[in-house]
């Protein structure tokens, strides 16, 4: 059984960087207790799931609260919108988790940390509220998963 895994899902589209920002902050804090992975596509999480007891996914979200609000859900959760994928570029997080569950790949504990975003334009930095929230989320994850 390997170390707990923390995955940051993000892109270069404004507040969609949130997952990456949390991961960057964990790295700045010198967090070495878990394996950290940065992905652009939720489907890539499947590559790293095997043989884990704990998986933490950091991502941006929309529609869960005011911009910059932090949410923590345990999988399975109905808070993730299930939608029909049109390809694999856009296979959503809920579909990836469903596929992993169907194949028995899911770790026993899966936690999703999400930061509510507001702007999603290409090449923009994340907004101030989101950046601040990502720092807070990283600290909370650090406190919870130190020595995981």
């Amino acid at each position, binding site marked *: 059984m390997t170390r707990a895994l923390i995955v940051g899902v993000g892109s270069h589209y404004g507040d969609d960087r949130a997952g990456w920002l949390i991961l960057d902050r964990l790295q700045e804090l010198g967090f070495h207790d878990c394996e950290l992975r940065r992905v652009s596509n939720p489907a890539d999480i499947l*590559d790293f799931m095997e043989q884990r007891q704990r998986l933490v996914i950091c991502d941006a979200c929309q529609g869960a609260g005011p911009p910059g609000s932090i949410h923590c859900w345990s999988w399975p959760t109905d808070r993730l919108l299930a939608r029909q994928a049109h390809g694999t570029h856009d296979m959503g997080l809920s579909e990836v988790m469903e596929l992993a569950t169907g*194949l028995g790949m899911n770790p026993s504990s899966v936690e999703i940390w999400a930061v509510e975003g507001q702007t999603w334009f290409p090449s923009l930095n994340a907004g101030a509220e989101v950046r601040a929230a990502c720092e807070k989320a990283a600290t909370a994850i650090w406190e919870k998963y130190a020595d995981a």
Partner: protein
Amino acid sequence: MSTTDVIEVPILTRVEGEGGVTIRVRQNTIENVQLRIYEPPRLFEALLCGRALEDTPDITARICGICPVAYQMSSVHALEAALGIQTTPQIRRLRRLLYCGEWIESHALHIHLLHAPDFFGAASGIELAQRFPQEITRGLQLKKHGNRLLEALGGRAIHPINVAVGGFYRLPRREELAGLIPDFEWGLEAAIAATRWVASFPFPELTQPYEFVSLSHPDEYPFNEGEIVSSQGLRVPVTEFDRHFVEVHVAHSTALQAVRHEQRTPYFVGPLARINLNRGQLSQTVQRLADEVGMESECRNPFRSIIARALELVQVYEEALDILRGYHPSGPSRMPYQPAAGQACAATEAPRGLLFHDYQIDDAGKIRQARIIPPTSQNQRQIEGDLTTYLSRNLQAKASREELASDCERLVRTYDPCISCSTHFLRVRWEEIP
């Protein structure tokens, strides 16, 4: 009085990018089929103009998240031809290895998650996984191997960053590649098992008089080099691409459609074309496997493309293992060059088929003009032809409109189209207002 009705597939699912199909039926006969690509043009060629030629492999890689290596390979080969750069045998082998990684990732994904569900009436890979958990898990493992290889050699799995004009920015250490060997040994056996699995699928009947087109090389299965050949006897150097193929604009698509230059007929690129035209270049293992699973010497059923894709998976696992085992870094990682004005083209084999690039550069090493013709652009016209034939037959068989719409999607997916890649052109009309 004639009556017309229209069957719409508004959004094709399990293909990359956004497109749909419109079928116009008049008096129970297919009048017109349009593969509508409405995804906005990406304008990558214009974006390259004025940029340093060294930026080209990294910018063109952004055209596709599934086949970035193909764009990098076609671009560096064209630019190296323009600059007269000769690379070393080691760089050539590492480029083939990088392409192996991309084919493994792309083919494993398409076979298991995108295409296989169609043969069992499953709506998605998730649904298919409930019925074939071991096979889908195996497919995900194969995809992962492709990604790991791209990370080790390309710096990262999506949009690799190690490809340079003249070679690589850095040669991997021997242990970085050698560490992949056990996984690839397992993967070779798994790919063979996957081929046997897909060959057992129930395949719809459809045989078409295609003109298959691919690269062909006398000594190896085609990746980066070779002449352009076709099943109708064409054999020309890549530099003559424009004499034999041309792109045309159609109103219903933001992507140009490629056709044969004189005849204006469609042609077919991709794994089925490659396997048909290069069977002799397949390894002994793959040739035996092709015979064992009953792959015809010239297969003309597009639904059986999934077998061709699986056979290629075995082929690239074998080649990757061979390169991984023999790798000892030596010599330069890339060849030096001086910028000079020039023009050159190149074609390589992307997972989905022939990918043609053509560049003009100025004496300061800036891109003056770029032209990129992806495989999906080349297959579009053929896809429309296939749909017309297949749907005409099923319409006579009194299939329901819903069934016909599903048939459309299934047939389009056999080509593994990457619509996002294909939208590389926008015709702009300027209106002068006095």
